[in-house]
């Protein structure tokens, strides 16, 4: 009774907030529901097959890919892909749907709580690196909490990136781990062994700790790039499937392979899953070209050094004008010092406009990186100025709220 009331309250607040034009209303509705029934997430998960996706980078994209994959056989799938990654967002998504399958993106810190509440069938662990340190979720501590939660969830299929030592440490205590060789470009947060604090050496086929012998686990599937050819997923049992995405970037191919292995753990064939993912062209506004002011822009989101590292790679080699937008609001973390961990030196020679609430922090960083740039406080004006009336599509990379500001900018 209490649960039905709470669930109805969530739906009511969601609907009201949508009518008022306050977005999906997911957080407000979910909070209202959880206040009435603190066990609402448990209740709403009962009778559904729930898959969770967590990690520092790639949660939203992987959630979208896995949602499409699990829907490939015709089942209805609910997900929180445009909402919040915390319990109110999960509650709001589930309350509005009768789907028997659910895919939830989960904030790294909330994974233990959400895993217990949903009794998830599968958990995807993408990667773990520094993000918003002023909230003190130091990465090793987070990995430690994952470890405790996963040890207590013996019926959950854990799909884990074997190339990330922190993820491997978090997952290694789980009873049923599907290790995936998804790659790890950003290794700076992983050089200290999470098991013994010795030094982790990265080499050709993996990594290992000289101190305690903790090493990269054998994988069930891995991402392979043949010279010049299509990337593919290679399974240890001999299967090889192409990973052919409309989404750009190596990191998205890695996300797709993780999603394919998770789909298989949830009963959907990996090949069918990968084929379904080919149709995904945008994820919550990312990667698509859209009008901003009088200009055309391709919006991209990077919220921490590891994410920037991947995106700088993606835009390297292009000579499109580039706008970089940085905020430091609550959702971004109040300290943009991480800008100094991003290799902005790679942008030397590009036309760059710095914008966002904290364009001055970015400007100092670019100054010392030797990147010529101009500054413009207003993000829309920055995009227009970067296009300079040439009609060129402007690449725009923003951190979390900076990206969402531009996504919501009037056309």
């Amino acid at each position, binding site marked *: 009774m209490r649960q039905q009331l709470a669930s109805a309250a969530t739906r009511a607040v969601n609907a009201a907030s949508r009518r008022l034009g306050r977005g999906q209303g997911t957080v407000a509705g979910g909070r209202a529901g959880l206040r009435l029934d603190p066990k609402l997430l448990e209740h709403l998960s009962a009778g559904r097959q729930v898959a969770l996706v967590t990690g520092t980078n790639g949660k939203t994209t992987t959630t979208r890919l896995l949602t499409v994959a699990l829907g490939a056989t015709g089942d209805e799938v609910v997900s929180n892909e445009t909402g919040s990654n915390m319990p109110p967002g999960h509650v709001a998504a589930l309350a509005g749907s009768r789907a028997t399958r659910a895919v939830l993106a989960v904030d790294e810190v909330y994974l233990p709580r959400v895993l217990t509440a949903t009794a998830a069938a599968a958990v995807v662990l993408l990667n773990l690196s520094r993000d918003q340190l002023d909230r003190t979720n*130091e990465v090793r501590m987070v990995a430690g909490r994952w470890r405790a939660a996963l040890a207590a969830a013996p019926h959950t299929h854990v799909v884990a990136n074997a190339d990330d030592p922190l993820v491997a440490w978090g997952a290694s205590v789980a009873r049923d781990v599907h290790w995936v060789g998804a790659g790890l470009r950003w290794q700076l947060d992983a050089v200290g062994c999470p098991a013994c604090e010795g030094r982790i050496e990265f080499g050709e086929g993996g990594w290992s700790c000289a101190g305690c012998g903790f090493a990269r686990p054998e994988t069930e599937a891995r991402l392979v790039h043949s010279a010049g050819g299509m990337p593919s997923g290679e399974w240890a049992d001999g299967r090889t499937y192409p990973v052919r995405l409309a989404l750009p970037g190596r990191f998205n191919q890695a996300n797709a392979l993780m999603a394919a292995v998770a789909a298989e753990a949830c009963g959907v064939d990996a090949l069918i899953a990968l084929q379904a993912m080919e149709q995904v062209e945008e994820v919550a506004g990312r990667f698509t070209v859209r009008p901003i002011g009088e200009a055309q822009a391709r919006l991209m989101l990077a919220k921490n050094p590891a994410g920037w590292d991947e995106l700088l790679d993606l835009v390297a080699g292009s000579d499109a004008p580039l706008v970089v937008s940085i905020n430091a609001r609550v959702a971004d973390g109040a300290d943009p010092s991480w800008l100094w961990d991003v290799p902005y030196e790679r942008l030397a020679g590009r036309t760059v406009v710095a914008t966002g609430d904290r364009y001055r922090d970015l400007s100092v960083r670019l100054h010392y990186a030797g990147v010529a740039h101009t500054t413009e406080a207003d993000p829309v004006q920055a995009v227009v100025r970067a296009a300079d009336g040439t009609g060129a599509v402007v690449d725009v990379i923003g951190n979390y709220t900076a990206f969402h500001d531009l996504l919501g900018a009037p056309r």
Partner: protein
Amino acid sequence: MSGPLRVAVVYPDLLGTYGDGGNGLILARRAEWRGLDVELLQAVSDRPLPEADIYCLGGGEDGPQVRAARTLVDDGTLARRVQGGAVVLAVCAGFQVVGRSFPGADGEPHEGVGLLDIETLKGAGPRAVGEVVAEPEGIEGLPVLTGFENHGGHTMLGEGTVALGRVTAGIGNGDGGRGEGAVAGHVVGTYLHGPVLARNPGLADVLLAWALQGAWLEPLDDSASEGLREERLGTMRRKRLRRRT
């Protein structure tokens, strides 16, 4: 000085969080822009610490911090180079590491390198997180200091060690006084991130001048940093005014 000016970022693999590696880059660029020959060294923890003229230590997590302190004590180079006049900028976990002792994850004290007569204890309250403004005290001629702090320790200064500044906003050392950071000789410790030298180019030039035995440094175009300082300090002034009204 013969040979290039050597700036070493100490153990970026252990003390590499919070973007403090930027301090080394800023020192190197500011020397380069003045026509000096500079070498920027990333000194990883599994090799002997290289000989350098300026050492920069940054923030880090509890486990790696303990490891960094132990490795620096065993290595011995840092203490020896400071005896020989080398300059040190130590931030946050690095600040605690160059003191006499600091708490590990369990709160137990660990031995530091002892370059500064300071002692850090585990704080009882919540972490000090937020913007800091400090009037400079330990170094003459600096403009007001600005930065972002994020630490849980309380740092007590011993005899003969002075604070880098007096906080007018934020927590700083959290020792009951309003001190922020510490200075003794050519060793500077601070809790300020940003990184601290991006927000305070004047402090960068003091460190360079020390390393260059007081050589005159021609002024640089610091308009980007000036803009950042004005905006940060202005934001804090407005916050204070709002609180008063």
